[in-house]
């Protein structure tokens, strides 16, 4: 091993070795709190390995009767911490109305270009009549999605959320392209204290719409 090193490295190592391992320099090199233990030679019993083997067997036996720590997955699920970035979903507000206004910010920010939004008109007689736009179609390709959460971060309406779902499965590639219906099905309704559109509607009705 030494033969492969440069002569310089060898000299350095030798000097290093002499300095560190000679007793003369030891008090200067080590702080006073370091306790240097003298290595005693092994006793006969220790050299037979048997006490060590028996101690090891005692340890394994203790582990054998200890409670098992495996989580049996499909039945038991891991606790999901707050702020977890699972599968992106679309959510509705507490009144069950669509929150997304099809601004397409998420589509533009998405690094792997997983999101495709087709904007559409809002039904004039529906509960969202005061909103300019709504998505006609909203697709997230989960084979592209990298779960970065930028869509959630950028959304001005808090309409897209990365929730707790962490395992997706499907039989075809098209199973992994979530359309609008699927996204709302996964997302459900999230509690929301802003009631932005309620306030806006009230302001509009009071005559001071901006």
């Amino acid at each position, binding site marked *: 091993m030494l033969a492969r090193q440069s002569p310089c490295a060898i000299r350095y190592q030798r000097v290093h070795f002499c300095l560190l391992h000679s007793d003369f320099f030891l008090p200067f090199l080590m702080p006073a709190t370091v306790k240097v233990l003298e290595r005693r030679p092994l006793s006969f019993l220790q050299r037979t390995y048997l006490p060590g083997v028996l101690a090891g067997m005692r340890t394994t036996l203790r*582990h*054998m009767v200890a409670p*098992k720590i495996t989580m049996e997955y499909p039945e038991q699920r891991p606790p999901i911490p707050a702020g977890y970035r699972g599968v992106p979903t679309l959510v509705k507000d507490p009144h069950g109305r669509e929150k997304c206004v099809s601004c397409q910010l998420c589509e533009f920010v998405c690094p792997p270009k997983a999101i495709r939004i087709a904007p559409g008109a809002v039904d004039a007689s529906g509960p969202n009549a005061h909103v300019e736009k709504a998505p006609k179609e909203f697709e997230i390709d989960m084979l592209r999605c990298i779960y970065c959460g930028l869509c959630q971060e950028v959304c001005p309406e808090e309409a897209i959320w990365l929730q707790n779902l962490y395992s997706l499965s499907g039989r075809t590639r098209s199973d992994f392209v979530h359309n609008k219906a699927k996204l709302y099905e996964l997302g459900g309704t999230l509690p929301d204290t802003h009631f932005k559109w309620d306030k806006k509607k009230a302001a509009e009705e009071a005559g001071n719409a901006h």
Partner: protein
Amino acid sequence: MDLFYQLPLILQLLIKALIVVAVLMGFCLYGSLAERKVSAWIQGRPGPNRTAIPWIAAIPLLGRFLQRLGIFQPLADGGKFLLKEEPVPGHVNWFYFNLAPVLALIPALTTVTVVPFGEYIDAAGRSVPLILADLDLGILFIFAVSSIGVYSTILAGWSSNSRYPFLGGVRASAQLISYELAMSLAVLPLFLVVNGPGSEGSLSLIRVVQWQAGTCWFVFIAPVSAFVYLIALFAETNRLPFDMPEGEAELVGGFHTEYGAFKFGLLMTAEYAHLTVGSAVFTLLFLGGWNPFPGYTWGEAATWTGLALHSGLLGALLALGTFLLKTIVMIFIFMWVRCTLPRFRYDQVMRIGWRVLLPLALANLVVYAIGIAVLTQ
């Protein structure tokens, strides 16, 4: 019973042999499950607990319990071994490659013929040992036949025509030959004691068990022999910490790297058969065989309790149960050690075999020979 004895002798023997082989195969099958379960428990896992036969698993409580215990897992494993495609790599020596797994199983199943597993005391009070072939050679036959097993490992390693299996085969041959010496020297003192001056010489295992019933178990009389024999047994059965021929961390799978499907299943079965027979022989030699307590038989236990525990069918079943229980405990110890100790390095294996166990066994033999000579003066 009478109907059985009216059958032709060859048919009687065939039926007996089939029963014994079936039980041994059961041990091999469930040995693999026990291995997985024990290592799982020691590693803090529940082990295989999903496989289920729908009708049996549907039984309330019991079905669930059996499923959690993984009782059906070996059936699934066996089915998989049977139904998988049999790959034979193009670079192997076809004849010997196929011969090796067969050759592995033959010695493993042959040794069991001379292993007694209980005794039946008939109405006249005579003891009939439960054994397939009561050979006078006994232990010698077991040593001779089980050492043929090494040929299968060497053949498997050599005929695979590939580096890792070849290394595994070479290691197997060196290891098994080294430890056989210590193993046979370790049991010699036992037979010196059993065949003391004035008695008729015999190497039968039944004789050893009967001798222990009269005095004490050999594990207490000859602890060094038991120790050396046990360690050599670990090496002979290729169990950790002596699994040099397999050494999956360094040799991929060792001698069976190139094997798959049913041939791999046969090699594994042979390994567990060796383990079972080895545990059984250790029980017979050192742990009093089918007698329940050191120095006491079921007959003496019967006089304390006042029950006829020792004679007839009940006695035979008790003896068989005691023997199997001890064997299972020994198998458990093998698995327990496997989960505790890391593998030895190859040079360490050789050093332990030649420089520790062999001198120890030799010294042990000399001490016992002198001791017997002095005591019988």
